[in-house]
């Protein structure tokens, strides 16, 4: 029996056990939506395509599954672009479908036509323009495979309307055939032996663990290695939650807004064990002075990351979980504590600090949130100061429980991503922490939150300003505050009411103490508007071009 390619698409998604699609309809994607009509897969109608792709992204990060989103051609497709780039930078597995004008009109600047495969070439792991309907099942199978294996990433499939309507014989392929795509999982045995030798010999080792630990599901192995060799662990922003935030070996985050202990440890270590991290400029600061005395072991699934920014002594291309298992079998227990004593001294000398007196401080709110949730919530953030305070003050206990835009730093990511995470994890407590600026970028998705009856808790760190940029202007522009202070903001508590959800406005420590637990305990969605001190800065901070060992407070 023959079915339309659009119907085949839905069958493919069912075969891939897709449980939810985030999307927004339109003309060119009409046949696909008609096929959705007969499917049991849940479709979440967002309010803007950017919301769909960020939600699919948040869903993927929260569940570890491939996120799926759909949009129509032209403006629908271009509205996805930021979200696709975001997923690409953070290695999030997505399969993105876009409608396209009929093949006969492709290339003629027809109504709602854009070359979305051309536009997304540099921001997808791979993409397809489907010309032959019979190839669609093979393409979808490949797309899911490519998105979810190796270093994960987004894959886009552009489907012209006439192709979607073409009748095909449906058969879902069992295997994929991609001779140019063969990720390497098993680390080279000789390199692993060499790494084990370096680790055993090291006097001052530091483990520097990134998002690869979470993508590779290797948190347990990370903990085992750290404890086996008694090495302190620092996380990149993307790696946060891969190591218990309250563990004595934990240094906190490193880099631009990292803890001084983490940055000093890296600067003084003699062996840097980089696991699923990519020596991003926000981590390294001035490259020449990053871990200057250290030998470097670098484990990553993406060979192109190894040796890209720093010279590596022992490169290991492979799945970090498999490699760590091999390493664990070979390393010897280190008992020397002088390095750990030094680390402890730094931790005590340079704790993160702020003054909780006076106006309500954002750090105080995060500390309370941590206390109330016991570090067990799934925390989504937007981008800005509040994001860094979450990174510094929330002590993540569960791997994968931070949902945030790291590589691209996409304002507007927070709310839709939190929504996607909550869709994927309906039983899990999901808390969004968002700035008043970023919230206004995608707050249309409040309607989706309500429509989907999601019990999302949303905390707005309302400082009436684009805090992170204001901080930069203070530091680099002699406090000439240009285009950062909002002269008008909506009353977010009233806004919540407009959407029929409970709203709170908290202004003091006492109000936070009293009402934050109550707000978080509500059964449904809640918007918590925290009026916080605009003068608070993210500290420590490293000035542009400086070494991470020269952090300052501002």
């Amino acid at each position, binding site marked *: 029996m023959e079915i339309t390619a659009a119907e085949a698409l839905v069958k493919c998604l069912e075969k891939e056990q897709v449980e939810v699609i985030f999307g927004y309809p339109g003309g060119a994607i009409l046949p696909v939506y008609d096929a959705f009509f007969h499917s049991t897969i849940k479709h979440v109608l967002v309010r803007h395509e950017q919301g769909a792709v960020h939600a699919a992204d948040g869903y993927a990060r929260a569940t570890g599954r491939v996120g799926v989103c759909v949009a129509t051609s032209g403006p629908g497709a271009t509205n996805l672009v930021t979200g696709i780039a975001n997923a690409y930078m953070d290695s999030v597995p997505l399969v993105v479908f876009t409608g396209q004008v009929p093949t006969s009109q492709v290339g003629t600047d027809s109504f709602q036509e854009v070359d979305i495969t051309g536009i997304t*070439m540099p921001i997808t792991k791979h993409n397809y323009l489907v*010309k032959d309907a019979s190839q669609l099942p093979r393409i979808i199978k490949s797309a899911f495979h490519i998105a979810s294996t190796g270093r994960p990433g987004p894959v886009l499939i552009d489907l012209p309307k006439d192709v979607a309507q073409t009748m095909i014989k449906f058969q879902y392929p069992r295997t994929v055939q991609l*001779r*140019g795509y063969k990720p390497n999982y098993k680390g080279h045995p000789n390199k692993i032996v060499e790494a084990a030798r370096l680790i055993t010999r090291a006097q001052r080792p530091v483990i520097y663990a990134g998002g690869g630990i979470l993508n590779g599901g290797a948190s347990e192995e990370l903990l085992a290695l750290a404890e086996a060799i008694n090495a302190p662990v620092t996380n990149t922003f993307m790696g946060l939650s891969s190591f218990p935030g309250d563990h004595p070996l934990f240094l906190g985050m490193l880099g631009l807004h990292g803890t001084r202990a983490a940055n000093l440890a890296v600067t003084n270590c003699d062996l840097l064990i980089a696991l699923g991290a990519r020596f991003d400029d926000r981590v390294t600061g001035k490259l020449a002075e990053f871990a200057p005395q250290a030998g470097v072991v670098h484990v990553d699934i993406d*060979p*192109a990351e190894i*040796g890209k920014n720093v010279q590596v002594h022992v490169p290991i291309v492979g799945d970090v979980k498999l490699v760590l298992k091999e390493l664990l079998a070979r390393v010897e227990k280190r008992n020397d504590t002088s390095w750990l004593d030094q680390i402890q001294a730094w931790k005590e000398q340079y704790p993160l600090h702020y003054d909780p007196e006076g106006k309500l401080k954002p750090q105080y709110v995060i500390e309370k949130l941590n206390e109330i949730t016991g570090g067990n919530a799934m925390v989504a953030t937007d981008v800005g100061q509040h994001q860094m305070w979450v990174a510094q003050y929330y002590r993540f206990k569960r791997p994968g429980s931070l949902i945030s835009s790291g590589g691209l730093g996409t304002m507007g990511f927070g709310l839709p991503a939190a929504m996607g995470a909550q869709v994927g994890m309906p039983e899990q407590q999901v808390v969004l922490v968002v700035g008043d600026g970023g919230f206004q970028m995608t707050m249309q998705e409040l309607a989706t939150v309500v429509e989907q009856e999601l019990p999302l808790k949303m905390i707005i760190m309302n400082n009436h300003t684009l805090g992170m940029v204001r901080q930069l202007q203070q530091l680099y522009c002699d406090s000439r505050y240009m285009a950062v202070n909002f002269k008008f903001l909506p009353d977010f508590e009233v806004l919540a009411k407009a959407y029929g959800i409970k709203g709170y406005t908290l202004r003091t420590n006492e109000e936070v103490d009293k009402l934050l637990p109550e707000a978080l305990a509500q059964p449904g969605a809640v918007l918590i508007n925290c009026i916080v001190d605009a003068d608070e800065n993210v500290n420590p901070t490293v000035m542009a071009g400086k070494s991470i060992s020269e952090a300052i407070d501002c």
Partner: protein
Amino acid sequence: MRHTLAVMVENNPGVLARVAGLFSRRGYNIDSLAVGRTENPEVSRMTIVVEGDQRVLEQVTKQLHKLVDVIKISDVTTERYVDRELVMIKVSATPSQRGEIMQIADIFRARIVDLGAKSITLECTGNDGKINAFEESLRSYGIKELVRTGKIAMLRGIRYTGVQAQESE
């Protein structure tokens, strides 16, 4: 240093754009690029001449490998190889100058592919050095038009960089 890469790619639409886009957005310089199909109709071969030190070359190779449509990459410069390029040059030539030009053509084993009242068009194949020398020797006559195919290269001897070679590995 200059490297000559033989890049075997799936003969899919857009593959040239993927490769070219990668070079431009990562700031690698392509000296020349030649594409054509191979003995296998599903596979095209790109010969890319790229300038850069070992680090750049390593990144270029690794980034190319990340493209799903790229099947295999070989740096032929690291082995014994032959390379060729074809050039067509149109020079001004009055009938009285034709003899001289034909002599030059003879020396370089070039061929005359078109003859006009005031011009002559020559074709020549060879490696970089030969093509450059050929161009130089014609310059004084006034080069009206010049087009080069870009280099193609192949390993010497029985060694080959085909796709079958990869699958048997």
